[in-house]
């Protein structure tokens, strides 16, 4: 960041660091010493607007909006090299997943990811397994002499998704299907 920029203290969200660090696996945030090791080995470092150590610094400073709107949180390939190499044990890749969760809560969920969730909701799998598609899959498996697929009870998946707070992301076309039966 080269341009000069003044941010007013009242625009900072000092609680942001605690919002993150109270979560499973993200407690390590507060230990960062800004050494930059995470950024130097990062797989996507040349593609992000905020490098890993800067994301961590921004979280600590309370620059919540800047972090949640940066492309850095979505560009990461989750290769976990930052977490592996951090000398202070900061679980950056896990913190990053948490930042994604927060962005999603604010209504910013990439359609690709929402689509994957929908596919799991509808099929129990990330691969569609209904109707003609299922028949084709079964036929291919038969040719290899493989055992029959026994899919999960989708009601259980539905309950888990709703109870863990992502029901709003799912298009419940399946509810119509249910009532058609």
């Amino acid at each position: 960041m080269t341009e000069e920029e003044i941010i007013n203290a009242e625009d900072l969200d000092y609680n942001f660091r605690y919002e993150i660090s109270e979560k499973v696996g993200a407690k390590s945030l507060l230990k960062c010493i800004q050494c930059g090791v995470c950024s130097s080995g990062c797989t996507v470092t040349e593609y992000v607007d905020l490098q890993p150590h800067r994301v961590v610094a921004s979280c600590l400073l309370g620059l919540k909006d800047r972090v949640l709107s940066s492309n850095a949180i979505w560009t990461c390939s989750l290769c976990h090299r930052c977490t592996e190499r951090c000398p202070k044990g900061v679980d950056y890749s896990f913190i990053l997943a948490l930042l994604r969760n927060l962005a999603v809560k604010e209504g910013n969920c990439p359609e690709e990811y929402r689509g994957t969730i929908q596919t799991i909701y509808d099929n129990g799998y990330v691969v569609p397994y209904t109707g003609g598609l299922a028949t084709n899959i079964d036929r291919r498996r038969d040719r290899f002499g493989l055992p029959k697929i026994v899919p999960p009870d989708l009601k259980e998946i539905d309950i888990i998704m709703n109870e863990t707070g992502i029901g709003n992301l799912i298009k419940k076309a399946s509810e119509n299907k249910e009532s058609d039966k």
Partner: protein
Amino acid sequence: MEYALYLGCTIPLKLPHFEYAFREISNYLGLTFKEMEGASCCPDPVATQSVSIDTWLTLAARNLCLGEKLGLDILTICSGCFETLKTAKVLLSEDKAAFDRVNTVLKKIGYEYKGTSNVYHFAELFSQEEYLEKIKKILMNPLDDLNVAVHYGCHLIRPSKILQFDHPERPETIDKIIKALGAKTVAFAGKLECCGFCARLQEEIGFKLVEDKMTELKELEEEVDVMVGVCPACVGQYDRKQRLLSRKTGKELDIPVLYVPELMAIAFGVEKDKLGLTNRSVKPNKLLEKLNI
């Protein structure tokens, strides 16, 4: 040994030939399985974890419960599944609040997660001395003279404090398996680089990573006959993107990419025509010619 076999979704639904190769070699190695009927997607460590860590952990714990009900440790055949299930297992053992939250939800569907089953990837198993010895005894077609590039892939080895799989910067598990088959593994700088499949929202990243690694392999002094991996995402990524890159850049990127159990099956003498080896973008014709099978 008997395990609860966790197949995930990509391999059983899209790549049945991988599953076939895996089951064949397991048979030779004397492993037996109980199927985890009713298991769902692990769920995938990228989209699901990104959307909600709670959902991710709870769905994973539901799958772990199915292994617990069978009273067996769980064996995975995909690195994504391994990462999800193992991470869930470790996090839930370290975080009592998360453990309770997960079980509160699971109770509503009649499950209880206890944490009694361990989670393994087959690479961990097959690289143990006991299995390496078995492998050497089973060999029908030793892969002498074969130069193999091993791709470990991120979700098998990192973060090591959770996955507890191998040395995170100098892993050797897969190399051991390949060497037991009689082949040589090549050393190269990009060995531990990410395949880029999980940087899903920006495909150029994957293209760049695949191009860098494959170009390096093509420029090595020894000719690389095949690249192998233990994750369907990595294997598919290198296979498909090589073809696309060759078309786009004119570079000849044509190293066949096999799933480790496929190469093991070849070495064990499983009938080649049953393995579906041509079900990929870069056909392994040269490799099969060299092996003379």
